[in-house]
């Protein structure tokens, strides 16, 4: 790496903690930060005791509990005080990195050099056992004291994550585990034994029973089972282990007050601890029962402190504590990436976590080869402590600063990837649906308004007529002789007309129908607003196109099923007004757009799907037509029936016998017979009921048609599953729907280009 590039990455000194910034956020505490590391006194003492007691110590705990901090700022200073030399090793499994054994030897040389410790010379081809067991192989400090090296393997679980992800390293990992097993168990390696059998004099070089070194493995608790899988080779892995737990409230309070007591008063410190605890839903009011993740606590303290510095306050006040800790975590991530090129976010989310969401690292040089990612950007993120740049085996690598961030990064990545699935077709479908729902909403409002108007006119007429009848009946009954027969006939006629009007009002249900149209109009308008909002969102915010379109499609189908019909004439007017495109045009666009993606979709599957799509569209329209026809017939039969039955009723009951001419009586009789015939026909032909059934079928077919139009590429990639589902749905509709009739089906089939000889749906 060039010197000028190196300058852009802050050195550890630049990030060192001080009294103004005593919390490192997500960065682990380093040895130099030991003065600010609090709340882990008993863990440090326990770990130190265990390290001194046995050759191997295992430290494990969940991510975010501060294992690295405990090692670096807690254990390491104590080890140095007792003439032990901590050598922190984090193996790098990237392809271009040096062999693992070489990395360990290199770390020994580097850490010894940094501590001014004279270390035995490293020789090529030498096993770790040989290196440490050679007589005279002693680590001397500047005061000529013997230093005992402690190989501290931090984040050892990466053997099971990154190591396994890289098959090229598999054999090497096996070898290194063997080397470590020999060291830990104090066994002379088989290769060395064979050599010594051949050259026994060389045995003098080694001290077989002296093991002047120690090892510490630190790993995440969720990999403990994998780790214990090593126990056949390394029986010691199940002994001398320290499980690091989350902090309780008292420890957390020490983190806040001991490190930054001057920056926060006790009440606010308590509030911060409770705030972090609440974020983890422990909910206990007792301080010692709280359960706190140190990484989160440190981040929140760090973020609050940064806010304090920003506003120039001397202390962190209670007012700064707003939102939730999860929001602070997400906010931290988003703030780091605010006003940055999208490529930087893509780089972090695609390269710095694995597919399954584990932390990964990238060589610095390689990161800079990423289009749109510059050294300045990376340097800034390192300064903001989102990323860490660290030299591993002589190579600078970039990674997320802490595992606690992987959840946020993964969530953002998944959301972004869902957004990336949106294409022109999905967008066009959404726009088409927006126009359709807007058109449907207006159509229903218009119909509602028209029915209300009719209801009003009808109602007003009925009220007037019935008032006239009511007002006239009393004089007719009281003084019939004073009323002229012509007036009597007129009043009787008005009575009959009123009865007819009332009956028709009941039959035609103008008010009720108006209400239903209003409900449908509101519902469509609500979906339309929903779509408008979705279109205003970024594709990331919309989520998966499949889920999104499915949700809208189901909602539209539900409204369609539960709403009254819009007649063809009005719908055509609305379609013209809102410029609704025909689905077929969309489907065509979509086919062209997805051509490349449909390689696996076999030709006949495609043909079948297209055929089904057209059949369901044809069937839907046919059912709508039939429903419409039957409703008209229902009306044609119903209106005369209501009229004639009222004439019969009022004629027989209300008209006085003396004023009925014989011809009128005959007419009434014939009307009675006609009414009886109409009633019989209505019962027999069930126009209304049949219309309802056709309408249900029409809506159902339309829903399946929309389903086919919005099939996702993923669904189409599994043709059998996809076709099975649609086929079953079509069969179900077919079984539960009335017949269309050959003549109409032929017309529809021709319109939609469906092959009649291949009756799939009909």
């Amino acid at each position: 790496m060039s010197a000028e590039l190196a300058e852009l990455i802050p050195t550890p000194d630049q990030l060192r903690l001080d009294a103004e910034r005593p919390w490192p956020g997500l960065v682990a505490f380093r040895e130099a930060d030991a003065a600010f590391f609090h709340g882990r006194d008993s863990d440090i003492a326990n770990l130190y005791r265990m390290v001194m007691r046995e050759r191997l110590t295992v430290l494990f705990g969940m991510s975010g509990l501060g294992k690295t901090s405990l090692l670096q700022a807690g254990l390491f200073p104590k080890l140095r005080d007792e003439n032990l030399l901590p050598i922190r090793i984090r193996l790098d499994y990237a392809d271009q990195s040096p062999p693992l054994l070489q990395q360990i030897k290199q770390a020994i040389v580097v850490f010894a050099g940094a501590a001014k410790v004279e270390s035995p010379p490293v020789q090529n081809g030498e096993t770790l056992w040989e290196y440490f067991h050679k007589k005279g192989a002693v680590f001397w400090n500047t005061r000529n004291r013997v230093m005992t090296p402690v190989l501290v393997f931090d984040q050892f679980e990466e053997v099971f994550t990154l190591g396994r992800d890289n098959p090229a390293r598999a054999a090497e990992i096996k070898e290194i585990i063997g080397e470590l097993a020999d060291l830990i168990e104090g066994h002379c390696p088989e290769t060395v034994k064979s050599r010594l059998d051949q050259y026994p004099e060389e045995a003098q070089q080694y001290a077989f029973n002296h093991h002047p070194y120690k090892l510490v493995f630190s790993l995440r608790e969720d990999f403990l089972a994998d780790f214990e899988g090593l126990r056949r080779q390394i029986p010691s892995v199940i002994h001398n282990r320290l499980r690091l737990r989350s902090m309780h409230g008292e420890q957390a309070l020490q983190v806040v007050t001991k490190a930054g007591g001057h920056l926060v008063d006790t009440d606010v410190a308590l509030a911060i601890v409770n705030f972090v605890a609440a974020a983890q839903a422990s909910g206990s009011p007792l301080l010692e029962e709280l359960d706190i993740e140190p990484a989160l606590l440190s981040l929140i303290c760090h973020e609050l402190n940064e806010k304090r510095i920003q506003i120039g306050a001397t202390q962190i006040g209670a007012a700064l504590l707003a939102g939730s800790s999860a929001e602070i975590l997400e906010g931290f991530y988003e703030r780091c990436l605010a006003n940055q090129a999208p490529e930087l976010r893509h780089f972090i989310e695609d390269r710095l976590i694995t597919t399954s969401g584990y932390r990964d690292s990238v060589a610095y040089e390689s990161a800079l080869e990423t289009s749109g990612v510059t050294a300045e950007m990376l340097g800034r993120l390192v300064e903001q402590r989102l990323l860490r740049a660290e030299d591993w085996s002589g190579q600078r690598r970039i990674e997320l600063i802490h595992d606690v961030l992987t959840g946020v990064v993964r969530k953002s990545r998944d959301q972004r990837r869902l957004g990336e699935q949106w294409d022109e077709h999905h967008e066009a479908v959404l726009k088409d649906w927006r126009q359709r729902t807007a058109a449907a909403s207006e159509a229903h409002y218009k119909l509602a308004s028209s029915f209300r108007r009719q209801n009003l006119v009808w109602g007003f007429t009925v009220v007037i007529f019935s008032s006239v009848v009511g007002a006239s009946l009393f004089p007719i009954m009281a003084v019939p002789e004073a009323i002229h027969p012509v007036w009597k006939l007129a009043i009787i006629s008005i009575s009959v007309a009123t009865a007819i009007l009332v009956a028709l009002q009941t039959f035609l249900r103008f008010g009720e129908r108006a209400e239903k149209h209003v409900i449908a109009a509101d519902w469509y308008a609500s979906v339309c607003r929903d779509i408008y909002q979705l279109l205003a969102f970024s594709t990331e915010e919309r989520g998966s196109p499949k889920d999104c379109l499915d949700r809208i499609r189901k909602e539209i189908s539900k409204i369609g099923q539960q709403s009254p019909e819009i007649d063809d004439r009005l719908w055509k007017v609305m379609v013209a007004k809102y410029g609704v495109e025909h689905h077929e045009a969309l489907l065509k666009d979509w086919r062209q757009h997805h051509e490349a993606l449909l390689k696996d979709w076999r030709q006949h599957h495609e043909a079948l799907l297209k055929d089904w799509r057209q059949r369901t569209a044809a069937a839907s329209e046919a059912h709508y037509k039939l429903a419409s026809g039957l409703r008209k017939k229902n009306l044609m039969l119903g209106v005369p029936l209501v009229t004639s039955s009222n004439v019969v009723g009022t004629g027989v009951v209300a008209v006085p016998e003396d004023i009925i001419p014989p011809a009128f009586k005959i007419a009434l009789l014939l009307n009675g017979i006609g009414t009886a015939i109409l009633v019989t026909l209505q019962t027999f032909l069930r126009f209304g009921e049949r219309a309802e059934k056709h309408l249900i079928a029409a809506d159902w077919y339309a829903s399946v048609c929309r389903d086919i139009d919005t099939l996702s590429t993923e669904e189409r990639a599994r043709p059998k599953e996809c076709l099975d589902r649609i086929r079953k749905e079509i069969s179900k509709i077919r079984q539960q729907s009335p017949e269309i009739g050959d003549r109409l089906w032929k017309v529809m089939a021709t319109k939609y280009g469906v092959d009649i000889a291949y009756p799939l749906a009909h």
Partner: protein
Amino acid sequence: MERGAVFLSYASEDRPTVGLIRDALEQVGIDVWFDRDELGGGDAWKSKILRNIESCCLFIPIMSSNTLTPKRREFRTEWYYAREEHIKGRPDLRFIIPVTIDDTNAQSPGLVSWLREIQWVALPGGQATPEFVELVRTLFRDYQRSRVATA
């Protein structure tokens, strides 16, 4: 005194010159015990001297014309105790290395006889040679290593 330090035994008149030797040794990280004055006097002094000699890794009597006197001086007591420790405690180790800082040598008159039998190192004017420093460091490290091994 730090356990395992190098004991410098000298005549108080030679203190400035011996200070040069002490500096040379301390520069390479060797603990040196030099400040005899801090122990006070009387019986307490004797027992502390004895304890320090028992716990040092190397005894270096600094020889000069000032040490050729037959008078009862503190350094003669130290020689006596060192001789005892060598014979009783560490007969096989190189424990006493006499260093001369002037013309005095093993043949000079007035010396106790056993000092004549040990190999001397000449550091005229207290100028420590690299060979001398390395020799002391090796013996110092041997002692430190044996301590770790028996710990």
